[in-house]
């Protein structure tokens, strides 16, 4: 304690007392309460909005980045990849992604995921934006209601999204050709769908192709439709020449599938989704095979050189089948060979359009009907034979037709495949006839004939010689006569010339004799001159008589 504070103590006024207020809680506590409330609200919101965590399995993590790669549905970001891990067996990558709450409904059983990268395939370029913005995971919402959290990602984007109306069909083919996912499907060369997947059968004996046909074109896929590879160029050389069949240039380059239903009066019902169809290599195959097929065995004894597998079976110019196999078999009984030709016969062509009720008939009933028909035909001489389609190419075909004088035969339905009666082909007949002809020629007494001919020729020779002589003598007589004739002609010509000259002479004479003829005038002038000369001569004579000296001295100048 110092003096100074004491000194000033009295100067310090007393504070004015107030009645004591009741202690009230500090208003400042509102701040943390508000903060806590705000925090709670934010937390609750985050909790409610918290996304769903899903895992997607991919074969490769190419282009994926944890914390960066987005999940996009219809190009709207709905989530983000949180982590990428390698699966336990190291065969694939497991992507853990968080999906926002709004998109929770999309995570159902049949939702499909794929990585969207820049892709150039099947004639289209997609995902170019990913070149700049990086890859993202695309997804297609499933139709299922069952939620799911583990998914297996697709390696490539699905060619057709589920929400596109249309129907999918299954095609079975021997090989995939140049088809790929995304290859076009054509109907009357118009693109109506796409190939959605191609996979090898489990046995490895064929491929299963799934094709999606967009609505409204899917209604053109009838139950009896046929599909064929529209890939590339189909060039065939057969008895009817070279045939090139192509689809649009796009399909030539990229491959594709075409389909069509047989044209006809009958409207087949639409095929239900996922109906299985065979995919044929060419349109012709498809047309042929779309019908009922009846295999037959044809046994020939002749050579079938020029008959190829695929050669047509022809019925009066209409292809009703094709050769599917050619075998040569020894015939033990006759130590000969028989050629067994297997054909596929498309009896629908034979039955033609008169089959309005065929669609409702069962396969069995149709087969029965066909067999009855064929039996009748064969009983009337319906036979198979090999004919030459083109002499140029030497190609053969199998012809079915009535043969006038056929031995009675019938179809052996018991053998497999049924054996159809045959008659030797026209080529063989021709050959046979030729051989007979040659044999007959060989049998002819050619030497005797030759000898007779020799004699005849010799006598003919002498006859000719005598004729020759006669002609020679005639030849000799002829020049003389010719010379006479020539001379006579010359004489006549000379006479003609003489006469002409005589005529000219006479003309000249008459000219001379005429009064005003130049000769006469000249003569007159001459005579006049002569008389004048005589006169001068007379004058000269007179002068000389008078002046004879002038002969010596010259004419005297007259002065």
């Amino acid at each position: 304690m110092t003096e100074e504070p004491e000194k000033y103590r009295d100067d310090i006024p007393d504070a004015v007392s107030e009645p004591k207020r009741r202690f009230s809680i500090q208003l400042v506590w509102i701040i943390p309460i508000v903060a806590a409330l705000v925090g709670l609200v934010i937390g609750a919101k985050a909790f409610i909005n918290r996304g769903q965590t899903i895992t997607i399995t991919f074969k490769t993590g190419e282009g994926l980045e944890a914390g960066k790669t987005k999940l996009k549905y219809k190009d709207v970001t709905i989530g983000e990849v949180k982590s990428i891990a390698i699966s336990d067996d190291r065969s694939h990558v497991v992507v853990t992604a968080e999906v926002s709450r709004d998109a929770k409904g999309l995570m159902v059983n049949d939702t499909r995921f794929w990585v969207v990268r820049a892709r150039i395939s099947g004639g289209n370029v997609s995902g170019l934006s990913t070149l700049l913005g990086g890859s993202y995971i695309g997804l297609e919402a499933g139709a299922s209601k069952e939620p799911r959290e583990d998914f297996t990602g697709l390696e490539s984007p699905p060619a057709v999204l589920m929400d596109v109306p249309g129907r999918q069909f299954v095609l079975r083919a021997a090989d995939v050709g140049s088809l790929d996912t995304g290859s076009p499907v054509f109907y009357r060369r118009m693109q109506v769908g796409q190939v959605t997947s191609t996979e090898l059968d489990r046995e490895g004996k064929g491929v299963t192709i799934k094709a999606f046909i967009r609505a409204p074109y899917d209604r053109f896929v009838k139950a009896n439709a046929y599909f064929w590879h529209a890939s590339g160029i189909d060039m065939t050389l057969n008895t009817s020449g070279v045939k090139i069949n192509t689809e649009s240039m796009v399909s030539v380059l990229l491959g594709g599938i075409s389909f069509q239903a047989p044209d006809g009066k009958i409207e087949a019902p639409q095929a239900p989704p996922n109906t299985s169809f065979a995919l044929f290599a060419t349109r012709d195959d498809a047309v042929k095979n779309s019908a009922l097929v009846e295999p037959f065995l044809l046994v020939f004894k002749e050579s079938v050189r020029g008959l190829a597998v695929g050669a047509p079976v022809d019925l009066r110019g209409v292809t009703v089948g094709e050769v599917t196999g050619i075998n040569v078999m020894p015939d033990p009984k006759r130590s000969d060979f028989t050629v067994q030709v297997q054909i596929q016969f498309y009896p629908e062509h034979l039955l033609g359009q008169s089959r309005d009720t065929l669609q409702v008939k069962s396969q069995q009933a149709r087969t029965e009907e066909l067999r009855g028909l064929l039996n009748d035909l064969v009983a009337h001489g319906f036979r198979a034979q090999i004919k030459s389609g083109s002499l140029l190419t030497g190609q053969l075909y199998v012809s079915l037709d009535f043969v006038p004088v056929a031995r009675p035969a019938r179809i052996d339905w018991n053998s497999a495949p049924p054996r159809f009666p045959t008659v030797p082909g026209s080529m063989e007949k021709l050959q046979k006839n030729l051989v007979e002809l040659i044999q007959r020629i060989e049998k002819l007494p050619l030497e005797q004939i030759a000898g007779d001919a020799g004699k005849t020729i010799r006598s003919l020779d002498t006859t000719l010689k005598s004729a020759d002589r006669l002609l020679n003598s005639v030849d000799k007589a002829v020049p003389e006569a010719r010379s006479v004739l020539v001379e006579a002609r010359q004489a006549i010509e000379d006479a003609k010339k003489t006469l002409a000259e005589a005529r000219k002479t006479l003309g000249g004479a008459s000219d001379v004799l005429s009064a005003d003829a130049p000769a006469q005038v000249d003569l007159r002038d001459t005579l006049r001159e002569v008389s004048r000369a005589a006169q001068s001569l007379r004058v000269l004579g007179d002068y000389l008589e008078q002046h004879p000296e002038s002969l010596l001295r010259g004419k005297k100048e007259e002065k």
Partner: protein
Amino acid sequence: MKGTTSAAARGLCSCHVCRLVSRKSRFSEPAHCPRCGATLHFRKPGSLQRCWALVIASYILYIPANTLVMMETGSLLTYRRDTIVSGVAHLWKTGSWLIAVIVFIASVAIPLLKLFSLTLLLFSVQRRSASRPRQRTRLYRMVELVGRWSMLDIYVVTLLAALVQLGSMATVKAGPAAVAFGSVVVLTMFATMEFDPRLIWDPLQKEEFHD
């Protein structure tokens, strides 16, 4: 401290408004200044309580400030939503180490240290701790000094959000964390203001003045 006394110990009270020193009975009813009429207090009224309230509010807000999105940057190529920590991590990864360190210190470390310091001060005052009052006062001064500088992040975000608006080319948007973070900074500043450093020294007098 020997030979020192506080004004409060002598029953003297300074008016907060006109700074007139008046005599006030230590335990009597509330009084007002005889000159200007303002209510007189020996110490800031409710200092500890207010400080606590603000500190707790700051703690609460510190959580969303660090978990929510601070800044959304969208450009032609990328779209980023950064919290403070992820932004620091991004800066660190992309090689801007110095900036990363600065942002980390300014936006993560300092607010947290401030909160811890205030909590320590509040605890020590409440427990009437007499140990190291000088250091604690220095700590208080530092907290007060450094308070306004931790708005760095907010400045960056607000400047960028105002400047970078190029439509689809580039945009910068402030996220909800910016509000929370700003609140944390402001609330800690208020808390610092509310704290009465004289309370650090009062336990040495073995007296209690705050009312």
